[in-house]
């Protein structure tokens, strides 16, 4: 018998400190008000704004809790000010609430299905003994910014922080698949992770990739993140890394890879994570999963975020001020970021920061001297194949691909 109490304890089990306690500051501290409540976009639903709070998961800095069972926690804006996101500041997203702590010494990655050599299982040491590759890549939840949709659509109401960028190290997925020898007629490979549903009838979270993407040289079975073992919350001991594609494919705690000769028809492929056909400028397509109406979400759309100053900040007139942020896309690389201080009538190029590779966050900044009054700043990123952010939201039922140009309002005094 599964009791609700038991489940609550299971879900709460790995949470060290809850809510505002984590950030309690001495009475009278100026920082108290700012720190105990995260900055939340006014565009988010009222209920989200009332419910979201800082909470500290084991091994993490405080993240913005949207739900704790399953755990869905996003990074506050100030964790996104660098092109590399530290592991303890990285967002956490799960679909199902059954999340085991995986023991690395007994963990196995099983290859099954249409392999020439039959089933193969390898442990962590065997995975680490394969040639290692490293790629710096953005891991962004497909639903990032869903909460900013107008009108709102149901789902986890993410603001800007369901993303991060890390250096991922692991074996190429292609090399792992070669251990068992893919049969010639394989069309997709299917991933399963150690996490699972509470009820037997709930579809387990399984995802597939088209073979062409699975064997790309940047697609990894990663066991390190920023030079350390993957944090539990980000997929310990190994996860799939698919640079350029949304995080739904980046299976955490991966345990099984199945090669299939027909398109995989599990719930999380067939019914979830789909976008209407023809609405977005897709290059990378997942043709074996496409229908006449919709297609799986694949690559990340080009986007940018102003991380400083925060919307509503009061700044001083006549002083050199920096507006800065990050830009990213699905792996074509950022070509330029422009800033507008006049609601998009004119644009000025921002200075780009260090290039950490085409899959990474690209930092940018722009210096200016403000004059007294209300000031608005919008940022617009363009990638190397000419894709840019949209002026109006592209509506879609599940709230994906929100790359609308956003504006930050500042009060110059």
């Amino acid at each position, binding site marked *: 018998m599964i009791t609700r109490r038991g*489940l609550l304890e*299971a879900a709460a089990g790995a949470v060290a400190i809850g809510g505002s306690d984590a950030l309690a500051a001495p009475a009278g501290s100026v920082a108290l008000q700012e720190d105990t409540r995260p900055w939340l976009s006014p565009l988010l639903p009222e*209920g*989200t704004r009332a419910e979201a709070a800082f909470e500290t998961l084991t091994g993490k800095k405080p993240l913005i809790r949207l739900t704790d069972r399953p755990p869905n926690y996003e990074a506050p804006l100030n964790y996104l000010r660098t092109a590399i996101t530290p592991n303890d500041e990285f967002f956490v997203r799960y679909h199902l609430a059954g999340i085991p*702590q995986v023991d690395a010494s007994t963990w196995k990655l099983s290859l099954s299905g249409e392999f020439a050599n039959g089933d193969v299982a390898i442990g962590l040491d065997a995975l680490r003994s394969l040639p290692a590759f490293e790629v710096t890549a953005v891991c962004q939840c497909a639903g990032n910014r869903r909460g900013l949709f107008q009108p709102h659509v149901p789902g986890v109401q993410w603001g800007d922080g369901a993303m991060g960028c890390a250096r991922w190290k692991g074996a190429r997925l292609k090399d792992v698949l070669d251990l068992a020898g893919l049969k010639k007629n394989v069309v997709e490979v299917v991933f399963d992770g150690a996490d699972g549903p509470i*009820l*037997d009838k709930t579809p*387990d979270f399984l995802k597939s990739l088209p073979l062409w993407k699975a064997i790309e040289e940047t697609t990894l079975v990663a066991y390190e993140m920023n030079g350390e073992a993957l944090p539990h919350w980000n997929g310990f001991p190994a996860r799939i890394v698919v640079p350029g594609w949304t995080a739904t494919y980046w299976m955490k705690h991966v345990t099984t890879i199945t090669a299939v000769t027909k398109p995989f028809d599990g719930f999380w492929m067939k019914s979830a994570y789909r976008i209407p056909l023809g609405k977005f400028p897709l290059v990378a397509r997942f043709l074996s999963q496409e229908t006449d109406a919709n297609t799986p979400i694949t690559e990340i759309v080009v986007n940018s975020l102003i991380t400083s100053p925060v919307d509503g900040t009061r700044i001083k007139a006549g002083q050199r001020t920096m507006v800065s942020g990050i830009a990213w896309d699905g792996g074509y690389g950022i070509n330029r970021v422009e800033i507008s201080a006049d609601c998009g009538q004119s644009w000025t190029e921002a200075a780009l920061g260090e290039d950490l590779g085409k899959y990474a966050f690209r930092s940018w900044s722009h210096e200016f001297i403000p004059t007294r009054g209300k000031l608005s700043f919008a940022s617009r990123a363009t990638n190397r194949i000419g894709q840019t952010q949209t002026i109006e939201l592209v509506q879609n039922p599940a709230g994906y691909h929100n790359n609308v140009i956003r504006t930050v309002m500042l009060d110059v005094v």
Partner: protein
Amino acid sequence: MRGIALSAMLALIPALARAEEQETRLKQAPGMDMVEAQCGACHSLSYIVMNSPFLGPAQWDAEVAKMIKAFGAPIDPADAKTIADYLKQKYGG
């Protein structure tokens, strides 16, 4: 992954439980107990508050139907109506 006995799973999770669960408090109204028991069996109740107050009656009906049909929630039709009525009344848009 399937086939993980829940008891085994619990044993694997470090015993760092918070003293008090921080479960969302829902608005008091008929049906609340059923919502807590049925919806709360699989996910935190913050999913409800987070998705409010913008869902209209048809959308709340669709959400309840999805939990039953797509996610296998064992809720009979009478209870489903009680749950949907509560959500529309207290968390509807």
